[in-house]
């Protein structure tokens, strides 16, 4: 058969070149590992408590709440959208729960509902916000960046509005649990964060649903033509992101035993930085949950090392930014491809 004659020729021509590319693509997931190791070594030299269990738990716990936003954003980014409003959901969802359940009298609480309602309310607010975003973006075809930017401002404003700018405290016990409980001696929020990321790795990497997300992010028309229900997948992604953000906010509220009117403000910068440093593309279809995890881990390790090193406060930020850029350049060198 003619094809048989042909195949070996191209085989040799191609096999030599494409194997390494496949390997590199896989490696890109681990692009930040060298940077993480480098920071760990520097940290240990700077201050020997860096690698102590206590300090590592401190790092993980501090990042656990924001990391849920990173997970949420990764899902949305992979599907080719953006959700800036996550940072506001992070504050508003537990804020609404506190508003309705915290006894009247102390601060702005209304005390309308018993404390046990707080967790369902938090998650419901997350669902609702995700659904509004999805309605405007998927159903009405509005630009996702600008819809969620608008939502960010509205939701932040709503939290200021219901709280009158004050912090909610005396939260019901159920709101405190996730942010303050210890499971096997380790904060529950760490377990939760690790579990959800593991779930995210499976979801995006090994399920039908996850592959649909990549397909939509990579080429939505091709996904549609291949029979993927793109609208439905996008709806669930946006709603899921809202729920994750609400859950992260709940953990943060439990951790701080309060909901500040400014909870989450400005977090979206860190979230994007973590996701993008971790290899998640802004144009969809690119990046992994594991990469995003290394991204947020790196950022918080840098913060921790700078704190332990006792860098003068006014220079901390400049150093932090410089290290991020260096990490980026390094991951560019390891990744080896022009980024976009």
């Amino acid at each position, binding site marked *: 058969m*003619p094809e048989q004659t042909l195949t070996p020729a191209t085989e040799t*021509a*191609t096999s030599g*070149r*494409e194997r390494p*590319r*496949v390997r590199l693509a896989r490696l890109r997931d681990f692009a930040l590992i060298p940077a993480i190791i480098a920071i760990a070594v520097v940290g240990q030299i700077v201050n020997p408590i860096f690698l102590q269990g206590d300090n590592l738990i401190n790092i993980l716990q501090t990042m656990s709440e924001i990391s849920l936003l990173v997970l949420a954003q990764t899902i949305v980014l992979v599907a080719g959208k953006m959700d800036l409003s996550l940072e506001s959901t992070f504050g508003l969802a537990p804020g609404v729960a506190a508003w309705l359940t915290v006894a009247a009298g102390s601060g702005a609480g209304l005390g309308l509902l018993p404390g046990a309602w707080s967790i369902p309310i938090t998650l419901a607010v997350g669902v609702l916000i995700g659904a509004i975003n999805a309605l405007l973006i998927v159903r009405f075809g509005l630009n996702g960046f600008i819809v969620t930017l608008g939502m960010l401002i509205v939701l932040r404003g709503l939290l200021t509005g219901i709280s009158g700018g004050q912090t909610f405290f005396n939260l019901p016990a159920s709101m405190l649990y996730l942010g303050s409980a210890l499971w096997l001696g380790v904060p529950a929020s760490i377990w939760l964060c690790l579990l959800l990321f593991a779930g995210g790795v499976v979801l995006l990497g090994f399920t039908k649903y996850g592959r649909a997300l990549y397909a939509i992010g*990579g080429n939505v028309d091709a996904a549609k033509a291949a*029979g993927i229900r793109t609208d439905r997948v996008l709806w669930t992604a946006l709603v899921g992101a809202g729920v994750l953000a609400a859950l992260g906010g709940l953990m943060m509220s439990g951790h701080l035993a309060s909901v500040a009117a400014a909870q989450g403000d400005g977090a979206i910068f860190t979230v994007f930085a973590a996701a993008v440093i971790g290899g998640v593309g802004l144009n969809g*279809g690119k990046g992994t949950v594991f990469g995003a995890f290394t991204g947020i881990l790196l950022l918080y390790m840098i913060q921790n090392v700078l704190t332990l090193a006792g860098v003068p406060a006014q220079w901390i930020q400049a150093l932090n930014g410089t290290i991020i850029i260096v990490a980026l350049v390094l991951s560019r060198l390891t990744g080896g491809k022009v980024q976009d």
Partner: protein
Amino acid sequence: MADDQAATPLVEAVGVTKRYGETVALDRAGIRVMPGQTHALVGRNGAGKSTLVSILTGLQAPDEGEVRFGGEPAPRLADRDAWRQRVACVYQKSTIIPELTVAENLYLHRHDLNRLGLVRWGALRRKATELLAGWSVDVDVRLPAGELDVEQRQFVEITRALSFGARFIILDEPTAQLDAAAIARLFTRIRALQEQGVTFLFISHHLQEIYEICDTVTVFRDARHILTTTVADLPHAELVAAMAGEAAGLAEGPSRTAVTRGPGVVLDVRGLSYGDAYREIGFRIQTGEIVGLAGAAGSGRTELAETVAGLRAADSGTVEVAGRVPRPGSVPDALAAGVGFVPRDRHHQGFVPMMSIADNATMTVPDRLGEAGLISGRRRDRLARALIDNLAIKTPGPGLPVMGLSGGNQQKVVMARALASDPRLLVLITPTAGVDVKSKEFLLGKVEETAAGGTGVLIASDELDDLRLCDRLLVMFQGRVVAELAAGWHDHDVVAAMEGVRLDA
């Protein structure tokens, strides 16, 4: 008389090597194009033709070797203007900027400026309108180019390249997206320019076009130069053999002999209408039957095929697939009813470039890859390997992103995606666009094989090669089926019908 050894070639590439990572796209290859020649460059998908084009137009530097224009070394890469004086090009990959208007795309970076250095939009628009009118292309030049269809976009590219007044023009598969009438218009124009002494380098997978307008042909195979000769000296079979690297030629004529038509009806279309595109269409396809849907661009064939595949919802009428009526406009429903689909434009709707061959090929059958929504990587790769073997996709493995494949192989991946679901009905729109002759023969062979297994096939195309294996041909013109031809039709009948000439007249 074609080759005057003493004369300096207009353009010459010598010993050019180009690697992408460890890929060798060109291996000490070369070409000599003499002034006034129309030089064909042929080779199978991935042979390195487009890579040579990008080197000849100064978009990339070769790793080794050099390019000379009229005996002089080529300009520096940064000196884009110097390159543009020497060569104009229609690239294989679209260089249309979708956000800009048609007018501006035509005169990109060559705007007319007034004394203040400002763009004269009015003059630009008028020139653009005149230019397109000369090609009988009727589009409003103020439209964003992204809203044109593939064929119109291709014309904008061609018009632009030919309007430079360049003495050397490269056309990399200009005809892949054009229908017969449009190709005829293009060739008329090329002949006129040939008479003015313009030199062409012409790339196409339609070999009859080479014989029609080229005088010299160069064949590349596996990144190497194989031969250069006058077209007249190289019979069709030998040309194919040179491209494929084997003695066997192409099987000529209709290869379809035994029609294994079954009794069942896999597609029943009744009274279908869709806006301006087509009206009151009705036909049936039986098990194992291959039906062609011929028609020029704008005849409604593409829209009709897309309606059957669930990509569009008709305004009225029904589509029944194997006894089920899928929800109009729902691809998942159509898929569930047993439709496999190869869309018109593979880059647009065919594949997700960053995802692997395995993921793309199995995109239509996620449920077969594992239980409870999970995907077993091993099962997916096994299925993908079967498809890769089945369609002879040239790849080191199923994990390669589709964007790393050559055009023809990308098209095979799109075929694989359609076949993966073991469809009852296969809907193919211009399934072999940009595919080399051998691969084309092969893909169509696969279609026949699938039909032999009891699948009904609908092929919407204007390429006679694609339609030759059909048992029956429906010809569309201006949104209506104007003729139905049984196997054994003559080419000229089909062409005439597609152009709206009544056969019985």
